[in-house]
């Protein structure tokens, strides 16, 4: 148990990752798929950020009062990754809107059936 707790951040990452993928795979609703995708990406943010956190450390602003800082690099990276993620989801949503206009549905299998015809 303590071992699980010690690596809690990784366990959360894995659970998020798997549930995100599961939603993408299992849900037919295109928006829900995007939600799953978003959760999946979120797990990555956690994966990057959590190792950078040092217990008792503070934000990496140099000051005389502190000598223990968190690693700033993951924050920089993940800010970028979040922007990318937002752009992806926004584009995905836009596509879903267009698909709804064109097909009248956003259920993956219904669209799939319409295309087959």
């Amino acid at each position: 148990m303590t071992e699980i707790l010690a690596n809690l951040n990784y366990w959360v990452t894995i659970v998020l990752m798997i549930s995100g993928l599961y939603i993408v795979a299992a849900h037919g609703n295109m928006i829900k798929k995007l939600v799953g995708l978003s959760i999946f990406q979120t797990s990555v943010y956690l994966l990057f950020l959590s190792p950078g956190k040092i217990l008792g450390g503070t934000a990496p602003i140099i000051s005389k009062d502190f000598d223990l800082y968190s690693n700033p690099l993951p924050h920089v990276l993940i800010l970028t990754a979040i922007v990318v993620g937002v752009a992806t989801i926004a584009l995905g949503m836009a596509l879903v809107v267009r698909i709804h206009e064109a097909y009248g549905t956003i259920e993956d299998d219904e669209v799939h059936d319409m295309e087959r015809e």
Partner: protein
Amino acid sequence: MMIDIPPGLILILGALIVPFLKGYLRGVFLLALPILSSFILYNLPDGSHFAITAFGQHLELLRVDPLSRIFGYVFLIAIFLGIIYSLHLRTIEEHLSGLIYSGAAIGAVFAGDLISLFVYWELTAISSVFLILARRTPEALAASMRYLIIQVGSGVLLLAGLIIRWNETGNITFDHIGLESVGGVLIFLAFGIKAAFPLLHNWLQDSYPQATPTGTVILSAFTTKLAIYALARGYAGTEELIWIGTIMAIFPIFFAIIENDLRRVLAYSLNNQLGFMVVGIGIGTELALNGTAAHAFSHIIYKALLFMSMGAILHRTGTVLASELGGLYKTMPFTSIFCIIGAASISAFPLFCGFISKSMILSAVAYEGHYWVWILLLLASAGVIHYSAIKVPYFAFFANDSGKRPKEAPLNMLIAMALASILCVGIGVWPSSLFYILPFEVNYIPYTESHILSQLQLLFFSALSFAVLIKLGFYPVQSKSTIIDTDWIYRRLAKAVVVLITNVALTLHSNLFEVTILRARRLVDQLYKHHGPQGILARTWPTGSMVLWVAIFLGIYLLLYFIKNI
């Protein structure tokens, strides 16, 4: 002098100019090309002339020696005759393809290394297919595709063989190869396909009769004789060839006797004549190789002549089925005479060219003491007169009158046939003219009393049996039918197999993923039935299934990488 221009290249480059010419100018230009090319070939001394370095290899593009020279000459004669024969055509595709095809064949003959041989080898395949396609019938289209696949396949084998050989020996010069190595065997097979070895032969009977009237004339000259040249160069004296050749000389006879399409009959007889040449290569003595070269030379001419006469009939009547023809001698007298000259040549009548060359091969067989081979080849010679020499002219021009009264062949066709006939008789009467260009010195006297007599006996008794069998009604009735040959294997059997496989593949492709997902889902279904009425389990979601595959793959990779680590 323009010594260093490869003769084949002149034809190929010339072909590129043809589309820009019209009318008489085009005709003159077409005829000038082979003449110019022969002139250059005549002035080329023996030796290697045009070496370049490519693919990190030393390539000899133009190696002239007596063996390649005689094939070069006869190929030029053949394309010259072919051009005259096709001068009446308004379209240029056959001229173009014929020129490139013959140029490639000539290029291949003068190729001094296997890589340039391969390039020309494939070029003959690709350029010649248009001669069949130009017929523009669905059958021709299908036949041409089969032809192309087999021909390109031969080239591919050649490529594989040459790579292996290069790997083994580091040498790609085109000289004696032999069957000792894997590479040698593959190259042998590649040549064998083009030479129409038994069981590899059927592309010939399948495609040649489907080509245009002029196309078949040109086709008949190059591909197979190029293979004969290649075999003579690479595999002279290979014993296996003797038996391969003997079988080749015998088995087409049966098919030729029962075949109704006269151009197909000629295609089978082409195969039978190749058998004699292959035997000659297998014997491999100087006399035998001389005989092979001479036979290839005369064969190209008389077989072209026979195909020309059939082509003329096809041109005028639209058919060459024996069961549809007969009595044409009344309105096509010249064509019939030329056809008979061709027939006399192929059956090796004294005073015709076939007599000279076939005698050389038979004598070479006899001198080496191959008793059974000799007996069987004699049988094949007797058989030739049946299906090829008598059957073709008989059913086309005489036999029972079909009531068809076509016009005599166009003038250019007659001229081409006349020239070929003159060559047939000329070589038959003055064999020394042919002996002069043979690869080895000739000490052979074809015209001895004994030889003439035995040949005449063989021919006339055989002819008598034909006449009697026809009279008594024992000769197979010529009727519209399909005779199956080894093409059955790929047109029926293989087709069935391929259809099966592709069906399976297609079904797999479209269903495999979904089926797998479905199965996975069923499993999940049982485990997570309580997951509510959402009913994710009965449906298929393409995007979803893709993602699932990704996950599965991730799992597989993780597992494999970790296993490796343990």
